[in-house]
């Protein structure tokens, strides 16, 4: 059976690597000033103007319950497409940096172990080992449509 190979965008937060299917990614843009929204939940930093579209920026560090870190030149926004109620929503993810785009065959994606990982497996699609790094493949739709903070990073740090 021919195995399906998908491309994934690998980005980093703290020292961890995460992957999301490239088909979800519209583009990666450099950091640009954010119009802050104070009233929004903590990880929803504010909005940016991307060529006339207003795009909310979710800080993935905060979303994963990590301490806030000031944005640097290395900070990038990954603009992803999320299926909303009505149509496709665009959301920007603030991450520490992007690393690579890699081909990962479906068979290489290991299911998340139910035990040993305390975080909800619904936020994870699977785990992939790339050389010596472990990449967590995220289930973006469920991460971004929930209002709760996904305690992901911390858990991973503990397990590694």
């Amino acid at each position, binding site marked *: 059976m021919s195995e399906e190979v998908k491309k994934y965008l690998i980005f980093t937060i703290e020292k961890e690597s995460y992957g999301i299917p490239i088909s979800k990614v519209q583009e990666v843009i450099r950091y640009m000033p954010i119009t802050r929204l*104070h009233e*929004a939940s903590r990880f929803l930093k504010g*909005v940016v103007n991307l060529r006339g579209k207003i795009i909310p920026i979710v800080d993935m560090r905060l979303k994963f319950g990590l301490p806030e870190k000031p944005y640097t030149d290395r900070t990038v926004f990954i603009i992803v497409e999320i299926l*909303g109620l009505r149509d496709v929503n665009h959301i920007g993810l603030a991450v520490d940096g992007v690393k690579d785009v890699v081909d990962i065959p479906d068979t290489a994606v290991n299911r998340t172990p139910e035990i040993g990982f305390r975080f909800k497996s619904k936020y994870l699609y699977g785990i992939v080992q790339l050389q010596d790094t472990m990449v967590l493949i995220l289930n973006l739709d469920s991460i971004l449509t929930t209002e709760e903070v996904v305690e992901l990073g911390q858990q991973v740090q503990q397990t590694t």
Partner: protein
Amino acid sequence: MTVEKKSALRTQVHALNSLLAGYEPGDLLKGVDIRDTLSSLKKEMESLPHMDKLLQLTRHLIRVAEALADPEKEPHAMNLLRSTGKDYEAFLAGSLSAKEFSERIRARSSLFQQVLRGQKEPTVSRRDQPEVDTESGRLEPAETESRRTEKGKPSKNADGQGSPAEVRTGYGEGYFDGIVEDEKLLSQFYLEAKEHLEEAQSALVELEYDPTNKELINNLFRNFHTIKGSSAFLGLRNVEELSHAVEDLLALVREGKIFLTKELIDLVFHGMEILRNLLEGMQINEFRPQDMKKSFQIIEIFPYIGLMRRVLEQYKYRKIGEILAEEGKITLQDLQHLLKRQQETEKKIGELAVEEKIATTEDVLEALKKQKSQVAKVKRLGYVKVSNEKLNTLIDIVGELVINQSMLKQELLERSGVDRGERNISQLETITTTIKNLVLSMGMTPISEIFTKLRVVARNTAEELGKSVYLEMRGEDTELDRNVIETIYDPLIHIIRNSIDHGIEDAEERQRKGKDKVGRIILAAEHKGSGIEIIIEDDGKGIDPELVKAKAVELGLVKREEAEELSLKDTYGFLFLPGFSTSSAVTTVSGRGVGLDVVKKNLDSIHGRVEVVSEKDRFTRFIIRLPLTLAIIEGFVTRVGENKYVFPFSAIEEIKVIDPAEILASENGNGSEALIYHRGMHIPVLKAHKVFKEEEKGRDDRILSLLFSLDQSRYCVVVDDLIGKQEIVIKNLSDTLLQECPYFSGGTIFGDGSIGFVVDMQGFLEALK
């Protein structure tokens, strides 16, 4: 002829000619003026000797002027009046001999005949006419007129069946005499015509979506053409004339001279309805010509035919000379003069006007431009279909273009000494602004686009169910975002079909209830607050809330005890639950049902809300409230904390600068529960910072606030800075954001690229509760 009298005559003739030159097709008032002037001219002549010939001619002219009211004859009548009027003037001025004059009139005799054919006999007030007619025949060199009248009169009398002009007010004597006495043929025609009408109807409905489809237009044309042909053969003159009128219009459409607008489509539909009535009139009377005639008498076709003619008139365009005269660029006398010259030289009026130094080249060019735009209006072809996706992208990109442009300008201005660059940049600015406005307007569509389609839906549904329904539309020109319009189309169809199917009772029942036999549905749209409200109201049997409650209890949606206490709003809310609506029990009992859950789902997807209000046996009203996603609003831009916030301008009553000393009942000195007494009212002072969680570092001496009026209550909203009123293009904020901040209806991007938030006042107030 005394000199005095003669000059009086000349003045009259001159006045007449000015009137004639200023006449526009369909201008009934001017037509009456012309007739009056002619009458007084006639009186003047009556008082003079040796004027029999002119008097005679004038009497005819009065009748010609009467023919102006008949759109078909109008152009000819006008030509006649204008040319004859000029001859009058020339004759009185002495530049035209009597002989030449009569020759000219003779040359026009066929035209006279044509115009006067079938024209009503002069009314009682001019009963002297016949005598003079006979008299004039004997009198001196008046042979021209006498010949003309002799020709004109017989044809008029011979035309026993009456002529269009005569029939305009009703069916003339013997109008229906030509009907073939063959019931079989008539019934065959009936079936055939019905079929053609069916075909025409479906073609027309499709044309509403695709108005340039040649094939459909041809089909439509053929249908009416066939009906016209067969009805003429059978002597059904009313059917013939009616279908002829429609055919005339369609012929122009087919030739590409007119664009088939929704108004025209409606007009054709209207004609079809009358045709259908005529056909029914035949069938009801079992095709017995004698009885049919009686039914036919009742059904008026002439107002429609008249209307059709007037519509066709509109699609003619005006001449350069008329435009110039109307603009006051040249006087009417000049125009007369030019027209005369034109006959001699065959040059264009515009050229002549410039040659004679009557008008400047610019004026003529301007008039030419006007004429061209009229032609363009007449044609109105050349629509291009663009996908919504492309359009949306275009709107976004253009927004970005504007922003980049202004940033570039800023940068250049900072570097001094680039004069040339500055000029270029301001030119660029003009261009981008034009593009922006154009593109934005492309995104907006008047709601009439779907209202018209709904009219067809209503028409078809009513027909299917054998009910008669009148659909009244209001606020069709309310502009909405194209995307919103597309999403609400299906829900509206559902609601309208439901209203006709289950709301409106059949005719007998309505009569029993003392209602008008024809059901009435109101479809209205208007801007309300920062959104748009669409109302669909029928005057049918309404929804009984008790039945809805009973059903809800039965389905276990609410406990029996609780059901009693449900508000009307909550009760009707059940109707939108899936499964609830599809229940046949509700459909038959309360009369509402299928698809309301779908309606709600569709509206939810664009942040729209729907609500029902009803009263048993009186009405059911659906109120749909839509946000102005992507629409343009008048907004008042303010700064609160570090961000810009836009308040809907429509709700703002005034800008109020509050002196801290004015604040009453301040509980903790911070003004969190403050009131002011202003214009005889106690108005709460609300801090916008609290809702937006912005930092407060307001100045103490002067508090800037906006005074809002909402649902009869007033509020002062304190902001940090007032930036000003602007046209705001509302951008969608993503769902994620709106969930968090329900007090925003959207966002916007300003010229400098910064982002502002558009405040939804309802949500804003709720956030403070």
